């Protein structure tokens, strides 16, 4: 019995020895793995230290400026041709364009009454805040088929020419105001004091991109300067001079009390001469002063 147990003990001891050996082998193997792994611990993936710089500076670059001048010059050729074509049509009709700036005002209704009395049409270049103040007059203009145009928001040279985008910004705001009040979306603009000398090529380019048509004039009534009957005399002469030269007059006038005072005299002369007043439209090629090197930034 004793011997039997001893034999069993031997077998068990043998199994134990084998188990211990296996355990030791395991430990050695796992240690080896540990060593191998510790080297990987020190090798994380590198993050990317790269940058993506934007292409900046094109806005003021000589390249862009030279392209603008070229595009503007090409556009000018096309515009002049279109103006000449329109002029032929207008000449046959003995057409004349009357334009009134700086309104609407407290006297706009009177002004419309006078025009109505002579059965004449005109185009109004209006200032945003004034449009808001005299909405009824604007709606009346629209209903009676007058031309509706834009004259900006501030009417201050120091503001409307203060940056390349300032004119287009003011005109866009003005356009929205007019559209809200009248439902008419007008692209006709006149710059305060005219487009020379402060409307630079860059500003013209941006206005063009905004679909705006820059209207200047060829007959300055000088109503703003003379403030009495002399402006009528002066304007009559100028109109005749342009008509004789075969150029359709685009007359600059102002929505001001002293202009209205002598306006009937001017209108009756126009009627007597058999001229026909027309309104400006978005589609019409505009009469615009040309820079020809005379335009410079105000700042």
């Amino acid at each position, binding site marked *: 019995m004793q011997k039997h147990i001893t034999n069993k003990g031997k077998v068990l001891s043998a199994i134990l020895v084998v188990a211990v050996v296996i355990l030791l082998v395991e430990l050695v193997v796992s240690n080896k793995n540990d060593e191998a792994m510790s080297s990987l611990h020190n090798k994380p993936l590198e993050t990317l230290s790269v940058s993506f710089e934007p292409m900046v500076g094109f806005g003021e670059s*000589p390249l862009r400026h030279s392209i603008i001048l070229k*595009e503007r010059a090409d556009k000018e050729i096309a515009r002049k041709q279109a103006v000449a074509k329109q002029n032929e049509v207008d000449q046959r009709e003995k057409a004349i364009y009357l334009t009134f700036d700086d309104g609407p005002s407290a006297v706009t209704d009177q002004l419309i009454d006078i025009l109505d009395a002579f059965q004449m049409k005109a185009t109004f270049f209006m200032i945003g805040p004034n449009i808001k103040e005299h909405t009824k007059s604007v709606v009346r203009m629209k209903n009676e088929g007058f031309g509706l145009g834009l004259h900006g928001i501030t009417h201050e040279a120091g503001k409307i020419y203060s940056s390349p985008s300032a004119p287009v910004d003011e005109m866009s705001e003005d356009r929205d105001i007019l559209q809200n009040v009248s439902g008419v979306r007008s692209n006709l603009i006149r710059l305060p004091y005219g487009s020379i000398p402060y409307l630079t090529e860059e500003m013209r380019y941006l206005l063009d991109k905004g679909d705006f048509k820059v209207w200047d004039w060829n007959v300055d009534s000088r109503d703003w300067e003379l403030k009495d009957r002399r402006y009528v005399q002066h304007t009559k002469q100028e109109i005749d001079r342009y008509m004789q030269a075969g150029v359709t007059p685009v007359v600059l006038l102002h929505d001001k009390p002293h202009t209205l005072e002598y306006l009937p005299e001017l209108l009756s002369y126009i009627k007597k001469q058999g001229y026909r007043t027309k309104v400006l439209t978005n589609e019409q090629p505009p009469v615009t002063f040309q820079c020809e090197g005379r335009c410079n930034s105000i700042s």
Partner: protein
Amino acid sequence: MKRLVFLVMILGLFTFLSGCQSDHKQAAEIHEKMEESASFEEKFVANQKQLDDTRKRVQEIYQDVQSLDFNDIDAIKQRVGDHELSMEKQQLNEAEENFQTAYSKLMAIKENIELIQDEDQKKQTTKLVTLMNSRKKLMENFFDTYRNQLKSQSSFFEHLEQDKFELDKLEGEIDVINEDSLHMSEVVEQFNEITEQYNKVMIDYFKMADIS
């Protein structure tokens, strides 16, 4: 009876030990595969650095061209970055190839993950695969955007070469190029964040594998 209990204990010890040994074996294999993958990642990072340098050269060319008048057509033609752009394309292809290889090498650990018995280790390694997949998605987006940008850049310079000085088109191309740059910056930022997470998970996993 005693003998039976003893045998069961021994067998249990064996199973435990062989389980450990199997997880160790998987860890070792995973380590090897990751190391192989990482070697391609290194190449990929190097490619990205080359691309970074080439981009800087293209920027210089762009600045150069901008300072000219469009009438100086010959000067512009001499400067446009055809050579640099085709170099960039090539470097981009290499970067993509290396990243793709790194990715597939890593994906090979999936078969090891299946054999891991320890739940935590399994979880951790599965996270590695998920993170690598996120990195891949981001890089695919990055490569697509980059190719798009190179197309815009080529057509920008082509327009200049062919005397097509239409401002609308040129400005439109610059806008697209800049949008793409911004987008790629954001993608790289996300990519780096995930790479850092990946590194952390990797370290944690190998710690786990050591302990068991």
